[in-house]
């Protein structure tokens, strides 16, 4: 009996250690959270401290907390630069059918546009274009590359 309990305790300790170590490795390479890219490898900047893009989960167009923070920075930047117009490019990863991805890219670009508009940027200054899966930023076939490709990118027009 006691032997059994001891054995259980040892096993428990071993399992806990395994789980903890698994967590720490995931955190080290933690550039994807819940399917959304959180790294900065492909990101460019509209101005110092103003990232040009936000990332999405597979098949989704909802904005994450981090995406909203990025878009608020873009809105501040656009308020300061009143004569600047932008186009928001919507993109999808390669793991979907071409036509659906075109629609999904358009939905993602509009999600970003709508958010900028709620922060006072006129819709007239923001056009959108969807490229679907046609313009991957990372051409590799891997979960990280796909997460970098599921994006909307704000590009200066003038």
């Amino acid at each position, binding site marked *: 009996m006691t032997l059994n309990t001891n054995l259980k305790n040892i096993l428990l300790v071993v399992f806990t250690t395994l789980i903890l170590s698994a967590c720490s490795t995931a955190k080290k390479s933690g550039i994807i959270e819940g399917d959304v890219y959180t790294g900065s490898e492909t990101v460019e900047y509209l101005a110092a401290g103003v990232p040009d893009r936000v990332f999405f989960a597979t*098949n989704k*167009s909802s904005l994450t907390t981090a995406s909203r923070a990025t878009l608020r920075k873009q809105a501040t930047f656009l308020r300061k630069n009143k004569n600047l117009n932008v186009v928001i490019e919507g993109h999808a990863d*390669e*793991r*979907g*059918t*071409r*036509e*659906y991805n*075109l*629609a*999904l890219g*358009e*939905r993602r*670009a*509009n*999600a970003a546009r*709508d958010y900028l508009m709620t922060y006072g940027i006129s819709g007239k200054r923001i056009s959108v*274009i*969807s*490229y679907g899966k*046609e*313009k*991957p*930023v*990372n*051409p*590799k*076939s891997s979960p990280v590359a796909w997460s970098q490709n599921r994006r909307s990118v704000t590009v200066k027009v003038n």
Partner: protein
Amino acid sequence: MIRLFLLNFFFILSFSKLFALIEVDITRGNLDPLPIAVSPLHVDIKSEETKNLKTKELGAKISEIIENNFKNTGLFNPLKKDAFVQKPDIAHLKPRFEDWRLIKAQALVTGKLLITGGKLKVEFRLWDLAAAQEMTALAFTTTPSNWRRVAHIISDKIYERLTGEEGYFDTRIIYVSETGPKNQRVKKLAIMDQDGENTKYLTLGNELVLTPRFNPTSQMVTYMSYFRNMPRVYLLDIETGTQEIVGNFPGMTFAPRFSPDGKKIIMSFAKDGNSDIYTMNLDTRVVERITDHSSIDTSPSFSPDGKFIAFNSDRSGLQQIYVMRSDGSNVKRITFGKGIYGTPVWSPRGDLIAFTKMHKGKFYIGVMRIDGTGERLLTENYYQEAPSWSPNGRVLVFYRETKAGDKGKGFSAKLWSIDITGYNERRLLTKTDASDPSWSSLLSK
């Protein structure tokens, strides 16, 4: 520009009595291909020489195209010519049936051709060797430059006689030619004969082009282009090269297809993050909205009688296939299997819908009945999509992409075909990488 279609074919068709014995069972795929001998066509010695054509070799070349067509169906086994037992001209008059049976042939094709007065005159006969009789014969006249089409038309007639189904050899495939690295692809519209010959490029590659589709009744094509960075649906006349934008939409239009009568284009229009399905009548230019839903509605495809539309929608949360009446009423979801479904395409026979299915990181091309029952997955791969039907509804062509390594290394996009039986999966050779194939109707119908 491309005047391939203004041809004059004069047919003299003679069917022999309808009690012939050989038949090819097309429901079983390539399990038991029919041994067939295709004799080189006899070239009449009175034939003129023609520009760019070696008249003497024409008879052998035509027979090779026919053999290649038959081999690609998986239904026939063309026999090697070195075993042939009779000269082409003598066999064409009347074969010695018992000699051909010795080389295990069950059917024999013979023919002859003559080029005179700038015209190519061809006739052929199909013989049932077991029954020792002629099954069908055809003679026609055309311009010598059409010699490849002659071979395809003969193939169609023989296929029809032996299977009871319409052929699909005198057809073409339009597709998107792809070159360059994966993140800087150059895409051009390209067209070729169904056997991969006669490739022609219809755009220069200056702008991104996607999803070309044939009009089932003419040589018109609809496709999507990013001309001037405005993603829109276009209409292209491949005979004259003229093209025009379809409709006047204030946003992206995409996923175009023709109605079965060729008079309408059905497509998606995306605005403010929402894609719905519209039609435009090409004669009256009247635009009709077919769906009005806050989800993505795309990839529409008419039933061959024009009464229904299959389409792709994520109104349930993920991509699924729906069917509705052509006025947009009576929307019904038809896919409930595991995974998500896209690209529904209605069979020209009306009985099946082909689709792409995505499940657990794999992509499948499959067919199901129009109510969603009887799902059959024909092929599984890392990535494949966009099935298009052969005009007789027997074969699907689609494209397949490979997994890419760092910097896109190892990436390719190729065209493949598969019979709806699930047999005879086969690569279609293209000059470049290729995607988004669309199969034409029979040209000589």
